[in-house]
């Protein structure tokens, strides 16, 4: 979204280093993420793109040996600061994982989970509304409206992933992080999710980690290329794919390595 012709920066990462124990996984990452755009993070396996993604909602806290240094500003507030409330942060920054991970509960309970723990609905009616709009936004409503009270784990893989997306957007996050959301899905389900991502960017800022170059080219406006823990190059997807500055990026995109 442009304001006075200037793109709004939603997330600003400065000098981010990440360590797993003594092993350094990310080196001095600096990356700006634009609001209401899709940013794709690409790179070979083990290059640190998922690690970077998990820095943005402090999911690395869950891993004991992982430590993060540097500044990550979201809405100009450093989330690595001690005063940051992780619960509030994760309410604002939703996440979708590589493998669909619906809770072993009903479809309805899967969606109502977030709003319940954040006290977002005062009545059953309000909750019904949240569930319905979330499922509609995730383009899943038509398929599951008659089986809201059946287990979410009984849905197909693509439906489960859209259920997880619906779960993520149920708390109206500003940013949605997606960690290879289509890697466990077939091409048809992948196409549905990509379409959905395009729709979601109207209301959310989206960062997607992907192994598929074609997917990055299709869905994203900006792209960052990671290699061995370094952010080699970032910029508009058009530029990265058509005219990259760095030969490593060129090699990766044309499939010469990785």
């Amino acid at each position, binding site marked *: 979204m442009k304001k006075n012709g200037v793109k709004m920066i939603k997330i600003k990462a400065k000098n981010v280093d990440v360590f797993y124990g003594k092993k350094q996984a990310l080196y001095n990452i600096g990356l700006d993420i634009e609001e209401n755009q899709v940013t794709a993070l690409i790179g070979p396996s083990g290059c640190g793109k998922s690690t970077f993604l998990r820095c943005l909602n402090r999911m690395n806290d*869950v891993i004991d040996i992982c430590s993060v240094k540097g500044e990550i500003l979201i809405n100009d507030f450093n989330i690595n600061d001690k005063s940051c409330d992780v*619960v*509030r942060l994760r309410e604002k920054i*939703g996440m979708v994982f590589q493998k669909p*991970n619906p*809770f*072993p509960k009903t479809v309805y309970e899967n969606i109502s989970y977030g709003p319940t*723990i954040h006290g977002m609905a005062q009545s059953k009616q309000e909750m019904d509304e949240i569930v319905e709009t979330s499922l509609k936004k995730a383009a899943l409503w038509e398929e599951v409206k008659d089986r809201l009270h059946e287990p979410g784990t009984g849905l197909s893989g693509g439906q489960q992933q859209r259920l997880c997306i619906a*779960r993520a957007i149920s*708390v109206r996050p500003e940013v949605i992080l997606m960690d290879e959301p289509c890697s466990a899905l077939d091409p048809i389900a992948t196409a549905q999710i990509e379409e959905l991502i395009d729709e979601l960017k109207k209301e959310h800022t989206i960062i997607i980690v992907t192994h598929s170059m074609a997917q990055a080219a299709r869905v994203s406006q900006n792209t960052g290329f990671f290699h061995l823990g370094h952010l080699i190059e970032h910029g508009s997807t058009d530029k990265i794919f058509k005219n990259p500055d760095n030969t490593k990026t060129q090699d990766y995109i044309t499939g010469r390595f990785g």
Partner: protein
Amino acid sequence: MNLILFTFIVLLGFTSYYFGRKKAYTIQSSNKRLTALPQFYGYYLAIWCAIPAFIIFSLWAIFEPTIVKLLVLSDYSNQGYLDDELNLIYEKTKSLSRGQFTGEITPFIEASAEKYLSLRSIAQSSKAVIVLSIIIASVAYAYKRISSNSRTREPVEKFLNAVLFTASLAAILTTVGIVFSLIFQTIDFFKVIPLFDFVFGTHWYPAKAFVRDSSEALDPSMYSDTFGAVPIFAGTFFIAFIAMCVAIPIGLMSGIYLAEYASSKVRQYAKPLIEILAGIPTVVYGFFAALTVGPFLKELGTSMGLEVSAESALAAGGVMGIMIIPFISSLSDDVITSVPQSLRDGSYAMGATKSETIKRVIFPAALPGIVGSILLGVSRAIGETMIVVMASGLAANLTLNPLESTSTITAQIVVILIGDQAFGDPKTQAAFALGMSLFLVTLCLNIVALRVVKKYREKYE
């Protein structure tokens, strides 16, 4: 004698292994390909040694005593002895031959004893001769048969299969045997005591059914109101209930702590420490309950103006609960740990706190497994013996006051079977009836628990 024979056969087995392998090497050195590794040839010969030996030994063990007995007693046939008397004579003969006979020695018995001894020694030496010659023949036959293209691997594998099968069969047959030994005594018991009186009677007082003289006729009416099992069933479930009141909260919470909160270092030390509790012999728990907890509760109660029996259900149940903690904590820890990390991540990513994640996602997902672990704990509590024998008293009171003494099925079985008992007496058979009902209860609990645990396992696979 038997020991020497046995050692000799074992040595023979090793020798045949050695020769089999050696023959294989010889075949190999003449540039022929073997169908199996050389040691299979060795094992093959050793098996040809072991199987005949085993068969002959078992046949001997089955038939030798009967045949010797027949031969010894053949001197007494046509003299009008009853079977019982013949048995008695034979027992006297045997004890005399061992030099342990203290009664009056008649020439008849002396003659039989001599005959018995000579028969035994003939049997022994013929056994040795037969076993050794058959083994040597069979090994020699097999040795001649093995060649470069004979199959040795398959028979060896089949033999191992059979050995393993026999081992598991032995375990299963033992279970079946135990159940049958319970069933017949139980049926005999219920022939005298009506099932209805046992299941619904409220007076359990087996001391009243003092052991009857076997010459007296069995009069069922003298056992009325003696074997009413309600008080001890109630006592059993009551004590188990107290135990679970202690074990479930503590076990579950420590399981959750170990699985979710403890750092890997704490877990590394705490888990084995908790599991040490499971290794303490129940006798030790028993005197801990009887000598420490019981008197402590009594004094505590007295100071508060309550009347507490030194052998209270509370002391026994409480200590039993402590005993069960490690089962519940360890099992529920395993179950919770096996909930996929992706579910935790999903919940944390929604902004849930740790306790919310545990309460709303992990606990429900792990619930079937936790229920399974609790049911296993309950069946342990019901079957536990030492603690109740030592700490809960032996009088079967029908009470729901945890401060009074009460008794359980297991404790009553001990009371009944301790000291002199007469088999075939309802008092003794009552123990079998109790054992049977205990077995049925724990069997049902275990079946339910295993079903539940299995159902849980399928969920994430």
